[in-house]
């Protein structure tokens, strides 16, 4: 971290770009924005990463603007036009209840986005807290916390999530809790590693000498430093999380009907797939597209952060 230096000559008027590229940032905010900008300059060089990013942005836009993008309701049934093939009226055909598949895909984007946001919001803090405590305190605390983490890490995630989802009962919120229960360990591991490298830094020693409590040191000084890498890591893992969520949905443990969820749509489409393949084709492609996007962004991010590794 660069320590902001008091400067008298403020950057010349030249606007935002100059502010972004100023060799000596004037504050914490500017320096972090600058770091972000430097990352973006590198990220820009990965065309596939940009494609992935575009798909993710598209997902967000679609989820937000769903009612504008389609005139059909994703839930109301229309048995008269049951299992209609794709046409000008129904772009992706209709399902077994006569609901427009395109509309259900569009509204399903909301479910996916909901899962992505909630899992991130649950997993990141838990992983951060456990990882930083483990790394900072060391000793017995570290031993116990890391053993718990290892136990969670040593079993196939989907199977564990299945068990938890079954115990909690079907439903989208419970599926999210189940996924989060299996998704935090890698984050905790990462936060622990980051903390170990920070623990003996001079600025931490300085804060400690000023009389800060352990909890204050962790939450106010160590934790914020771990956040960027944790966010990157969550992005990297998001493709797997989406696939797991789709698997839970497919097995009937995710969002409950009639609410549109892509995995569940593929599951209900199974019975009709021989005569109406569009019912399962569309949700599968949607899942693959979003998870591919996260994989592409993840690959590019990995490259930006560690240009030596991988390729």
């Amino acid at each position, binding site marked *: 971290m660069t320590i902001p230096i008091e400067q008298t000559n403020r950057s010349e008027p030249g606007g935002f770009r100059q502010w972004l590229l100023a060799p000596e940032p004037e504050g914490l905010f500017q320096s972090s924005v600058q770091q972000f900008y430097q990352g973006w300059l590198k990220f820009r060089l990965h065309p596939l990463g940009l494609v992935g990013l575009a798909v993710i942005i598209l997902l967000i836009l679609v989820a937000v603007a769903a009612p504008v993008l389609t005139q059909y309701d994703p839930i109301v049934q229309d048995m008269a036009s049951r299992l209609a093939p794709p046409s000008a009226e129904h772009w992706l055909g209709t399902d077994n209840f006569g609901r427009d598949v395109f509309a259900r895909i569009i509204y399903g984007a909301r479910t996916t986005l909901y899962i992505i946001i909630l899992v991130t919001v649950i997993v990141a803090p838990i992983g951060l807290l456990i990882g930083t405590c483990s790394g900072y305190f060391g000793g017995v605390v570290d031993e116990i916390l890391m*053993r*718990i983490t*290892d*136990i*969670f890490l*040593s*079993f*196939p*995630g*989907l*199977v*564990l999530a*299945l*068990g*938890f*989802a*079954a*115990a*909690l*009962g079907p439903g989208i919120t419970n599926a999210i809790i189940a996924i989060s229960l299996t998704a935090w360990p890698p984050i905790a591991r990462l936060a622990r590693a980051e903390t170990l490298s920070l623990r003996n830094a001079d600025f931490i020693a300085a804060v400690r000498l000023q009389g800060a409590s352990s909890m204050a040191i962790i939450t106010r000084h160590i934790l914020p430093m771990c956040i960027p890498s944790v966010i990157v890591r969550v992005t990297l893992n998001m*493709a*797997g999380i989406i*696939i797991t969520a*789709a*698997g839970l949905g*497919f*097995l*009937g*443990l995710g969002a409950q009907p009639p609410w549109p969820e892509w*995995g569940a749509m*593929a*599951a209900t489409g*199974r019975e009709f*797939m*021989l005569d109406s*393949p569009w019912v*399962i*084709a569309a*949700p*599968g492609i949607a*899942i*693959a597209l979003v*998870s*591919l996007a996260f*994989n*592409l962004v993840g690959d590019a991010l990995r490259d930006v952060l560690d240009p030596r590794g*991988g390729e």
Partner: protein
Amino acid sequence: MASADLQSERDPNRNIDAFAAASPHPILITLRRLAGRVVAIVTTLLGLLFLTFSMGRLLPADPVLAITGAEVSKEVYDRVYRELGLDQPIWMQFLTYVRNVATGDLGRSTTTGQPILSDLLTIFPATIELALVAMVVGIVVGVPLGIIAAVRRGSIIDHIVRILALAGHSIPIFWTGLMALFIFYAKLRLVGASGRIDVFYEGLVTPVTGFLLIDSALQGQWEVFRNALSHIILPGSILGYYSVAYISRMSRSFMLEQLGQEYILTAKAKGLGRRQVVWRHAFRNIRVQLLTIMALTFGGLLEGAVLIETVFGWPGLGQYLTRGLQMNDMNVVMGAVLTIGAVFLTINMISDVLYRILDPRTR
């Protein structure tokens, strides 16, 4: 052999090991390491048991109502409550659970009344057979593909490996299964339908190993063998594809790491052919790493099997688990999760031991 000499010369860890062995008695060190491993395994196993226990007992779904159904009188509820030992403190309940599992008592299915252990024993070979076929596909296709991709970086094969891996990590396996069923079964009629075998052939082979392919071949029932093969080929290769995606990518990066080492340069400078350099020098050094990857892949295969078995109606562990889920039969769910976890743990343990035996640096 020249290459062996070369390797031992440039392996600095040997000397370090020699130093380490010089301080306390080597047997003591081995014992201490062994004790550490045993403690780690036992705690992980207890952790697994606690996780499955908490699925069945601690989480909101009421275990009593799961057995009796929603409409139940107060007396019956109380009796079942006591029979399940729910009036005991949590730690006592956990101990009872551990003791039951240790003696092979996994409880009974609340829907069929069958003991879960015997259920698991009958269905287990089906899943293992499927996973083994997938594993063979993954190794036979994945390892060479990854190595060729590393040797010829930037070639078409390299790009193929990249795309395979990306697709494998992005396309949900149940969807691939459904699509394959649609194309190869419904449209092309190339493969058998769901299940392990057609009803017509059922019961013709007496189970010896439980693996239909092996049993039918041993008993010379080639009709049955062919039928069983036509059933396993599709789920087996789809599951195998997902392991190819992972194995090829990993072998590529292991191989790249070796090819960048100086001993490869030396070998090339000596005038050895490319084949010699790749297979006799570089490949030898990634064998142990590949073994670890295969163990990890097997865990992934069990995960994939849960979904692919549901799609293909394969009567294995995965289908058993998902049936339990749909019937809200928590004993079945706990038993199946425990089995999958235990298998995964065992495989990790075996690969760990093999790693220690095979990698000279850990000796």
